[in-house]
């Protein structure tokens, strides 16, 4: 082990660090440099993707502090891609005077996500969580002219730091019982479920339940999604969630593997599986029911995000390779869908000054392209074929029903399908406003420049492609799982 080796294996992170510093410096220079900053940040992200492609297939540093497997490389690239789309989204927003700072924070958060994805050691995971969290708190409150943005930042910060405290306490308990912070070693040492271990597991999971916005730790989400600058909200809802699910999957399946338990109907065995099942059930019910009552698209997306966190947890409850790969597939697809939806919301907000339902009315006649793409995103979230959301749900539910061989999780699957039925209504209401309603005063056509148009079309294309040809991506995930 030498430092050159470390630099080689951490090259993507290093690239992003350098880019973040360059962007920060460029932002400090006088003059209008926001376009330049965006360009540099995007180029840095693309450069980091190629650095990920050059990584070796398998490598481990410092006893699991930095792990490189096909899985970590894949999800590093996904996080980088989501950050890339966020940079494009932020460019269009262009309202911040200090754009360089904003992009530097975004890049720092991305580094945090890459650490989360690429580590099997609780301390590094916690550092990743904190790095991401601190950057995102500032990003959420970045719009200093908007009270709601400040509210979003503050709420996100207060809830987030409390949850982090719980997680840190949980980690310390686990460390006290096993004497190690490496996930693999913890998995080997954990025995039967003792009360202390249970407390450790519960506390550790609270921090992640907060990150993925699962009920009842979701209370920050509606205000953060609605109040934060749109690129921040999109990043919080997408990349941060993907990385959290990856690391949550690793922690429960690798670290806490022996304490899984079971969540079957009338066959509950204590462990983290019933805990996650309860979180999932609560999230699905609460998220969908509360989303019904929303009249603001961003708030609706926030509550629906709670519900989607519930669906995604199904795969982890099921456990095993198939469950994990279903969860990873779903959360990735969901992230791309949500970035797309937020991109549409951002453009509508720029033209009409708001993102309530009525701001979207007759969007179809104002911009058929945006309306069509929004339809793709909403219907994918609702889980209709041939869009990616449908296949993702099918995969998740199949994984959940397969577990144990006796359909013990049927109750959870039925609940999730009931939730989808509810969600179908409110997604359709958004589309109703866009396609059916007529506006009294005709609003001029939305003007989109090339980059906005192509990024939204690319995102819609991804959602459609993963819906019709999900096989390749599924293969990639399953083959990269150990």
């Amino acid at each position, binding site marked *: 082990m030498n430092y050159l080796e470390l630099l080689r294996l951490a090259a993507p992170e290093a690239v992003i660090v350098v880019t973040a510093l360059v962007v920060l410096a460029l932002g400090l220079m006088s003059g209008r440099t926001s376009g330049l900053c965006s360009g540099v940040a995007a180029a840095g992200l693309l450069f980091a993707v190629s650095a990920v492609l050059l990584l070796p297939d398998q490598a481990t540093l410092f006893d699991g502090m930095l792990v490189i497997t096909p899985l970590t490389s894949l999800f590093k690239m996904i996080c980088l891609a989501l950050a890339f789309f966020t940079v494009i989204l932020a460019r269009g927003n262009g309202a911040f005077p200090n754009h360089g700072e904003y992009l530097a924070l975004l890049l720092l958060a991305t580094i945090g996500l890459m650490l989360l994805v690429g580590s099997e050691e609780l301390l590094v995971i916690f550092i990743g969580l904190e790095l991401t969290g601190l950057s995102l708190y500032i990003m959420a409150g970045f719009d200093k002219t908007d009270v709601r943005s400040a509210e979003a930042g503050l709420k996100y910060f207060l809830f987030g730091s409390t949850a982090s405290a719980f997680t840190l306490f949980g980690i310390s308990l686990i460390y006290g019982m096993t004497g190690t912070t490496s996930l693999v070693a913890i998995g080997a040492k954990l025995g039967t479920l003792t009360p202390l271990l249970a407390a450790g597991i519960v506390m550790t999971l609270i921090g992640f339940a907060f990150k993925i916005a699962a009920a009842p730790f979701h209370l920050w989400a509606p205000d953060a999604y609605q109040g934060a600058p749109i690129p921040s909200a999109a990043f919080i809802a997408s990349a941060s969630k993907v990385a959290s699910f990856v690391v949550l999957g690793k922690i429960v399946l690798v670290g806490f593997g022996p304490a899984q338990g079971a969540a079957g109907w009338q066959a509950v065995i204590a462990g983290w599986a019933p805990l996650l099942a309860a979180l999932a059930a609560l999230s699905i019910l609460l998220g969908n029911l509360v989303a019904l009552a929303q009249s603001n698209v961003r708030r609706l997306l926030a509550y629906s995000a709670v519900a989607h966190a519930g669906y995604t947890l199904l795969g982890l409850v099921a456990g095993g390779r198939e469950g994990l790969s279903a969860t990873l597939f779903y959360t990735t697809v969901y992230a791309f869908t949500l970035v797309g939806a937020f991109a549409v919301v951002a453009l509508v907000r720029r033209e009409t000054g708001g993102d309530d339902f009525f701001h979207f009315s007759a969007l179809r006649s104002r911009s058929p392209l945006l309306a069509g793409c929004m339809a793709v995103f909403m219907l994918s979230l609702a889980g*209709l074929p*041939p869009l990616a959301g449908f296949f993702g749900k*099918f995969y998740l539910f*199949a994984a959940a029903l397969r577990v144990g061989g006796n359909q013990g999780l*049927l109750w959870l*699957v039925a609940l999730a*399908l009931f939730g989808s039925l509810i969600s179908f209504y409110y997604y359709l209401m958004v589309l109703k406003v866009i396609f059916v309603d007529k506006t009294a005063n005709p609003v001029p056509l939305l003007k989109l420049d090339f980059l906005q148009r192509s990024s939204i079309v690319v995102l819609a294309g991804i959602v459609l492609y993963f819906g019709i040809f999900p096989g390749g991506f599924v293969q990639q995930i399953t083959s990269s799982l150990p």
Partner: protein
Amino acid sequence: MLFGELPKSARESRALPKPSMIAWTIYVTFGAALLLLFLPGLLARWMALLAALAGFAISLIGFFNAADVGTFATIIRLPWIRALGMEYHLAADGISLTMCLVTGLTAVSAVLFSWDVEERPSEFFFWLLLVVGGSYGVFLSADLFLLFVFYELVIVPKYFLIAIWGSTNKEYGAMKLTLYSFFGGALALIGIIAIYVTAGGGDATAALDLQQLAQYQFPPQFQAWAFPVLFLGFAVLAGIWPLHTWAPTGHVAAPTAGSMLLAGIVMKLGAYGALRVSMNLFPEGFHIWSKWIAVLGVIGIVYAAAVAFRQRDLKFVIGYSSVSHMGFVLLGLATANVLGVGGAVLQMFSHGVIAALLFAVAGRMVYRRTHTRDLETLSGMRLRHTMPFAAFSFVIASAASMGIPGFSGFAAEITILIGAWKAYPMAVLVTGAGMVLVAAFTLRALKKTFFADSPSDIHMQPGRPPVDADWDEQSQISAAEKWGAGLLMFATLAAGVYPKFLLDRILPAVEAMRWLKP
């Protein structure tokens, strides 16, 4: 030797189109739908007509050219999602071909009856063709996942067709219909996933392949709960009582072409799914539950007929009559014998044609010109004088709907009743009483709409000017309407006078099912 081989190869080169060409119904329809998004509105209806005619022609050729109608024979089979065993697998037997035929027929007439759509025509025909293409897909799928994809693909187009171009409480009707469809889909999805994880013994491909699943033995206790879930999921779309209430409101709210597609094709999707998937895969579950299906079917027949008798809105009358006729389909399926099930498939064809014709007359010919569907108002208009062609079409459709011999409705219902007599004699007695009700409400609607003699001078709805601004242009029944109605009338007569050409293809396919009772 050489000469002995020549005629054979010559015969092959002159051979009729392969049975596999039926798959092109799907490609042509979806291809045209995509093209429509880039076409100017003026060309849209021609494009749609072209696509519908092409689909109809292909399904017609496929129907008459079918070599082996008794087996669910593979048309095309390609690996799709290898990791999880999904395949792009199409197959057809006599039942699929019959359903494709009625889909093509209804699609052509639906396009003809929406010739006057002026608001956003490209979009209208886009959604319409999606419904048609998805339906072809369902009828031809031999992979459970593929079938469900096509099945769900039809839901959203229905919503937009009704919510944008509909009338009378359209947003409510559209949402209700869509949520019911999605609810049914969710139930069916539970069943499908349960099949997927239970069957195949680790071979994921076999767990979704309908040909192989039709031979698979599921554990009886699994069938006992999975069958009702799956069957009910599909039957929601077939209008099973008491989950039928989406049908009348949806039909009334829909634009004419929408009602024609709903009643003509979409309700058949449900019945077809119930037959092809739930009954075929779960014979023992089916035998446990079949009497309850018969009970619900008979209740549907009588209840919907009784409700239809009390309706004031012409389209509501027809909407409830659809539920009543679909009750016959369920009763036929529940008999589990060749005649009953074959009759049910025949009834699916027959009702598709008749309901499309009824809705065409009520929604396009009458409502478009009089702006009312209220029976009392209509009865003062002497429409038989002003619209003789509409009256003629409606008489034919009513006769077929009532089950007068010589029309397709009679052929189908008598076959079902003969089948039911063996299985559930009681049901036949109750249904007989129901048929009287059907005749009663049909005659009532017919009389009030066209043949009332109430001395009145109303020409239009009260409060309206006596004549529309574009009345001259509108008063004549257009050529498109005549062609559309003519096509449907010919179909119901042909199937009524010579049902053998349908039954010859349906019955072998039914006889191949493993769950038949003697």
